[in-house]
């Protein structure tokens, strides 16, 4: 890692040049909600002035750039002799992502663990990951962000370049030779002790700005113990099984595979499609038996996956605390309330004062 400082105007020139030369995506303001608050999304950008540099958080995560909602895994072509060939392509065009937050980059790092470690690394993911150039930016948290609780409010790898706002300039963490080569064309200076000070101040400020904190230590154990807790039914009764939370989440990666014939019957293609454990048929097997028949069973699973972790990624918690799911959920279900409920359940039952007497 090399550290440099760049003035804001020079930085804009740099971003403009690199965005113009590449297939680039960055945060843009696309709408205003009914309270007049801006809505940001990662959208194609063709020049620096299209980018909302001061954006807060995007509605959708950057996950789709690595795990598209729908992707062809392979294609079969059938011939007249009733033989077939399977074709698989992994290539991905080079893409530039600008403006990812530390939690977004952490999420990509988590996906790296899931998709690239273990016995069967995913070549589809790898191709996209390798061909994506990430420029990160820090920001002051929204009132409901809780990435600090998940220890994801800072990030030290997984990006090509990271920019911290220190007033008139950006403090750059350059983490790839490509980024360094690009930046050579621009006016940079080495950080002065004063710049370092500003950076530390900035970090402090960000850290102190979190208004939402969730206590997640010991959660894996709680989740195991509370597997049959009535709180799942309570929140499950609200859940619409709409999958919105999983679609906007930067780390939800569960998918389903579909295969369809081409309309001319001369081939077929196998696609994967982002799915969600909240959807009704996620755990249904052939013959119709559903291992998670109730809303609560399914909702629990998402929490189980996020805060307990699964064996395939070392039982690591995969939530980064961006609260996108909480903001997007129409039923008003969010991690903070669910986890607090779970803790309350644990802590009150210690005093023999369980709020849910019909527990078995």
């Amino acid at each position, binding site marked *: 890692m090399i550290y440099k400082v760049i003035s804001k105007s020079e930085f804009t020139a740099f971003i403009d040049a690199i965005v113009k030369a590449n297939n680039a995506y960055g945060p843009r303001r696309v709408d205003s909600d009914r309270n007049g608050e801006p809505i940001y999304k990662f959208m194609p950008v063709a020049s620096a002035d299209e980018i909302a540099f001061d954006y807060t958080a995007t509605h959708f995560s950057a996950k789709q750039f690595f795990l598209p909602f729908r992707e062809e*895994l392979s294609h079969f072509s059938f011939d007249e002799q009733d033989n077939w060939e399977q074709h698989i392509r992994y290539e991905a065009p*080079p893409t530039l992502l600008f403006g990812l937050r530390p939690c977004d980059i952490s999420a990509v790092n988590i996906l790296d663990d899931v998709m690239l470690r273990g*016995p069967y690394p995913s070549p589809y993911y790898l191709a996209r990951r390798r061909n994506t150039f990430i420029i990160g930016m820090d920001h002051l948290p929204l009132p409901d962000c809780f990435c600090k609780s998940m220890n994801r409010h800072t990030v030290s790898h997984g990006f090509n370049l990271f920019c911290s706002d220190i007033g008139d300039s950006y403090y750059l963490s350059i983490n790839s030779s490509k980024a360094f080569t690009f930046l050579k064309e621009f006016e940079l200076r080495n950080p002065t002790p004063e710049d370092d000070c500003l950076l530390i101040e900035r970090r402090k400020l960000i850290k102190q700005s979190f208004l939402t904190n969730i206590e997640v230590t010991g959660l894996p154990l709680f989740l195991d113990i509370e597997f049959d807790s009535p709180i799942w039914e309570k929140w499950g009764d609200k859940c619409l099984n709409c999958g919105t939370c999983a679609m906007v989440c930067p780390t939800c990666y569960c998918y389903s595979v579909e295969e369809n014939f081409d309309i001319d019957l001369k081939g077929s293609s196998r696609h994967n499609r982002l799915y969600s454990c909240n959807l009704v048929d996620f*755990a249904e097997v*052939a013959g119709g038996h559903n291992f998670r028949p109730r809303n609560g069973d399914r909702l629990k699973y998402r929490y189980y996956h996020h805060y307990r972790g699964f064996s395939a990624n070392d039982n690591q918690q995969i939530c980064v605390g961006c609260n996108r799911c909480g903001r997007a959920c129409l039923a008003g279900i969010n991690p903070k309330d669910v986890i607090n409920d779970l803790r309350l359940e644990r802590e009150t039952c210690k005093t023999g004062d369980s709020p849910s007497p019909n527990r078995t």
Partner: protein
Amino acid sequence: MQDGRFTLPEQDLNREPFAHRPPDFRQKSEVMITDRGYKCRITNIVPLSVHERLFQLRIVDPAERELFRFRPGQFLMLEVPGYGEAPISISSSTSNREFIELCIRQAGHVTSALFEAQPGALVSIRGPFGTSFPMESMQGGDVLLVAGGLGIAPLRAPLYWINDHRDHYRDVRFLYGAKQPSELLFTYQFDEWKTVSHIDLHAIVERPDENWKGRTGMITALLDDIAIDPENTWAIVCGPPLMFKFACSHLDGIGIPMNRMFVSLERRMHCGMGKCCRCMVGSTFTCLDGPVFDYWSVINLKEAI
């Protein structure tokens, strides 16, 4: 307006060799790491019952055939081109390197398509995947195999294994139950198992017909018929969840240690590689950590039964 100096070069970023071309499996170990399967020809189809058939497959490419090795209890992802994939236990002998046998029930989209296929058709397999029965550890002990219904499919591989290495094991018993006599599969092999493999085989049905001369009742009734040496017995139990739950708790009752009882779990699977999360049981994957689990793990898994 494009400035070449700032363009991300494709070659540079795509530098990982297998981002460009598929890996060459012939140089790899026995595990396959992508969605590319081995092309197989259906060489024979044997009807077993109304809804179950035995499919014999042969990997077309000799080099791939040479590469394909598996252990008893493992499964593969069977691709029926155009229709999709389904996880299926390998039901043949590990020493049979020429053919793979799969015992399949017509259950839904993919399996129904397979039932339309004619001998000679080309399908594809990925795998093998998953954990297996620890046949080596069982050496020197008694083996008790318990199957209910289609549960016999994953048990044929250990049965063949035992036949191949009969002198490694002491008493081998096979208890097999089905709803009705017509649903007992592989009855044509019973004699061979009894006389050639020296396996003590007992069958039972819940609803007998007029020709049925054997035992009637639930599979647990057979457990009362035989004398089990709990100290030295290893058990493999396959069948519907309710059945293995009863059988295992019975065996637990007579003192067989839980980590010497093995079951095979079934869940919906879409990838077989621990990515799609469809097959999760508690926090474990049926495809990576299973399908073979010892009973101790199963009772510790959320949602297993």
